């Protein structure tokens, strides 16, 4: 009786849910390709010229398209551009555009690119990612109020030809053109909506595989297949529904009740799903490390810095503590390429772990500094969940191996940045994510005088190698120089890399073909489809 009643109740509820779910008036046809996903937050803004966050990048990557698009293997492939002509000095790129259309039927023109890039560089746009355009001639000058708009090296020669002049012959410019800030924009649409541009689905236009059809702020959004997309035959999904869910356990609940097909999980769920095909690990081009402040007496000593790096067991962190990463092999994450080949495969593993050597080096270091005991060290940490675990583990580890007392100082993220920028820390647990697919995005941080070189480590040889590589058109030699530079920084333990992060996902077996990327935007749904649901 009781059971029956429960069943009836459950059935009624299920029925009512189904009814509400179909409230839109569409029948749930079996052949319709629908993907249900979750996002961890509200996209702060879809104006490609000014947006800075991962969620907006992800959406923009699927509703807009730049000159190039990153493919499944993370290589840039022609998209709105048909092909490109690169000058001999590798400083002038001439793109030929294909016949692509915006979602309102108007053609995508070279002028749209010129307009968007210059708009991003206009200080009045307040774009916080404008610096990604700095490789372009005159871009930095215009953006920092020192130069003129007309001197920016991007020009539409005609409707279908775009000429870009660079400062230096950088090898990664084509990957840069896949980045959100490099997308085209329509002047008429931007002007029409002014401040409200791209804040609602009908206040922008699209030229990507999908269009945004609905956006309920902070709650959900929906993408639909773009019929005006130049490569629409490659697009199989009809609809992508995204709910904004901030809590991992909530995402799992939705996944288990079939309200989401792909979700994000944290390391804790790895154990439960480790034998399941549903667990997907996506390597990220981001890296977490200990930044030593070399202005601090103890960390001015190379041997002590090395001792800290040697004492760490990176595998324990990635396999047992955070469970969402792989041990670092150097400053540059394993996902990045240089000169068309994987960087780490060329550079090798530069990390050494050795407890005994660590203890010995610590002693020698203290002797060199004329100290008899290692003082208590303050570790400036993150206030985020997984990082907190790593910090607590590291504290105990350093105490056990080196006998060093580490005090963890957790402050709000903004204050952590302030303290780091002011050099007001001893040891910091820090992280960095790649902006583009080249080791330079990491290695240039530790150049003397770079504002991000928060530990003030300095090495003349390193500076020279990086500076040379920034302008070197010989990509073969450049790759070797970068490896040499990284080796120097590692030998002197400018920092102690810990692990490269991975994104963890649960994905139903019937979801196929989502391309995931370690840098730039996270996902491309262009080739995704549902099979065997």
């Amino acid at each position: 009786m009781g059971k029956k009643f429960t069943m009836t109740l459950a059935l009624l509820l299920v029925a009512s849910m189904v009814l509400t779910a179909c409230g839109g008036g569409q029948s749930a046809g079996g052949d319709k390709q629908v993907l249900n996903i979750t996002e961890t937050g509200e996209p702060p803004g879809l104006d490609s010229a000014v947006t800075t966050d991962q969620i907006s990048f992800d959406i923009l990557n699927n509703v807009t398209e730049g000159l190039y698009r990153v493919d499944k293997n993370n290589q840039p492939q022609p998209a709105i551009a048909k092909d490109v002509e690169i000058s001999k000095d590798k400083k002038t790129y001439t793109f030929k555009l294909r016949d692509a259309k915006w979602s309102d039927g108007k053609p995508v023109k070279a002028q749209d690119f010129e307009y968007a890039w210059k708009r991003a560089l206009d200080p009045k746009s307040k774009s916080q990612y404008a610096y990604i355009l700095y490789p372009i001639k005159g871009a930095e000058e215009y953006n920092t109020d020192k130069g003129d708009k007309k001197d920016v090296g991007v020009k539409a020669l005609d409707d279908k030809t775009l000429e870009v002049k660079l400062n230096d012959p950088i090898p990664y410019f084509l990957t840069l053109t896949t980045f959100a800030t490099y997308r085209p924009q329509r002047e008429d649409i931007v002007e029409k909506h002014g401040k409200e541009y791209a804040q609602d689905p009908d206040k922008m236009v699209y030229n990507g595989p999908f269009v945004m059809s609905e956006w309920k702020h902070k709650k959900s959004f929906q993408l639909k297949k773009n019929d005006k997309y130049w490569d629409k035959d490659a697009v199989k999904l009809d609809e992508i529904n995204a709910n904004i869910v901030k809590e991992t356990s909530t995402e799992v609940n939705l996944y288990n009740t079939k309200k989401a097909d792909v979700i994000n999980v944290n390391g804790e769920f790895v154990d439960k799903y480790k034998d399941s095909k549903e667990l997907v690990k996506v390597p990220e081009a981001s890296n977490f490390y200990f930044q030593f402040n070399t202005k601090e007496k103890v960390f001015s000593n190379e041997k002590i810095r090395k001792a800290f790096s040697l004492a760490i067991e990176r595998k324990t962190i990635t396999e047992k503590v955070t469970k969402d990463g792989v041990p670092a092999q150097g400053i540059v994450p394993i996902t990045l390429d240089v000169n068309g080949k994987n960087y780490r495969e060329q550079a090798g593993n530069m990390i050494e772990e050795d407890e005994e050597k660590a203890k010995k080096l610590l002693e020698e270091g203290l002797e060199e500094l004329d100290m008899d005991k290692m003082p208590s060290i303050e570790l400036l940490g993150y206030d985020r969940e997984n990082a907190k675990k790593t910090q607590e583990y590291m504290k105990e580890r350093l105490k056990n191996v080196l006998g060093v007392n580490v005090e963890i100082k957790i402050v709000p993220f903004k204050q952590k940045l302030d303290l780091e920028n002011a050099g007001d820390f001893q040891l910091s647990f820090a992280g960095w994510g790649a902006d583009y697919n080249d080791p330079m995005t990491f290695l240039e941080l530790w150049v003397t005088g770079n504002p991000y070189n928060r530990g003030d480590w300095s090495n003349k040889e390193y500076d020279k190698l990086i500076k040379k590589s920034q302008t070197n058109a010989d990509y073969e030699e450049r790759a070797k120089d970068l490896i040499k530079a990284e080796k120097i920084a590692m030998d002197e333990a400018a920092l102690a890399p810990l692990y490269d992060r991975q994104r963890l996902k649960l994905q139903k077996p019937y979801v196929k073909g989502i391309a995931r990327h370690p840098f730039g935007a996270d996902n491309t749904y262009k080739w995704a489809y549902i099979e065997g649901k």
Partner: protein
Amino acid sequence: MGRFVLKRLIYMVITLWLIATITFFLMHNLPGSPLQNEEKLPPELKEIILKEYGLDKPLPVQYVNYLGNLITGDLGNSYKYDGRKVTDMIMDGFSASATLGVQAISFGVVVGLILGCVAALRRGTWIDSGATVLSVLGVSIPSFVLGALLSYYVGVELQWLPPALWEGWEYTILPSLALSFLVIAQIARYVRTEMLEVLGQDYIKTAKAKGLGRPAVIIRHALRNALIPAITIMAPLTVALLTGTLVIEQIFAIPGMGYMFVDSIQTNDFTAIMGVTMFYSFLLVVSIFIVDILYGIIDPRIRLTGAKE
């Protein structure tokens, strides 16, 4: 009474102005800037953007500007959400939070009142103990644990109700329930205590002696007098629930105000901080005013209009 209301209205404006002023100056001492990509932003570019936002001007100038806008009802645009209007953001979040809050409070007050009354009238029996245990559990199990348990067992294991999201009425049941426990607990405890006290007083005996029926005695005399502390505590609680609770919103993926507030503070979204603060304070000040007036209605002996006059 008219004079009293007018005086209080003036005080309300002064209070709000003080809150705005204090919050404004405290907020600008928060570490970092309202820029989102601060971690990677080149320092030179950062300076230029701050200048474009007018954040390089001296604080008193910014303050006067802000206050000027505030008077015209303009709360400004968000820094984080790419120039979205703070007023719109508050209204978006408030509709969800308020739905939840109203349901949790109505349910909580009704159940709390009944539990409290029954416990007091049946003092010392198992009913009393049961009500006590229930209300103690209500405060001692944090709402996030309760929320997570409800979402998992009712939503996933039993599949009776949706475990999360915000699509229709059935989606509001679990989070409302999780929130209402705190209300039930507090109301029940206060009502029980006060009822016990009131029931022992002479006028209750008089009322009974006059031949008034038991329900009439309880409702007209006892309950009415027992409500004072319950109402006092309800005002801030109501405002807190209406303006959202971070954890419940997160667990049930509800687009409410709770997250907006914490997020705006953590990202230094100055205009959003001020907007939510002013909105919250306004509700709070009004609710306290209403409570003060309610005191007089519930217990005519209470006069706020100057006891010494």
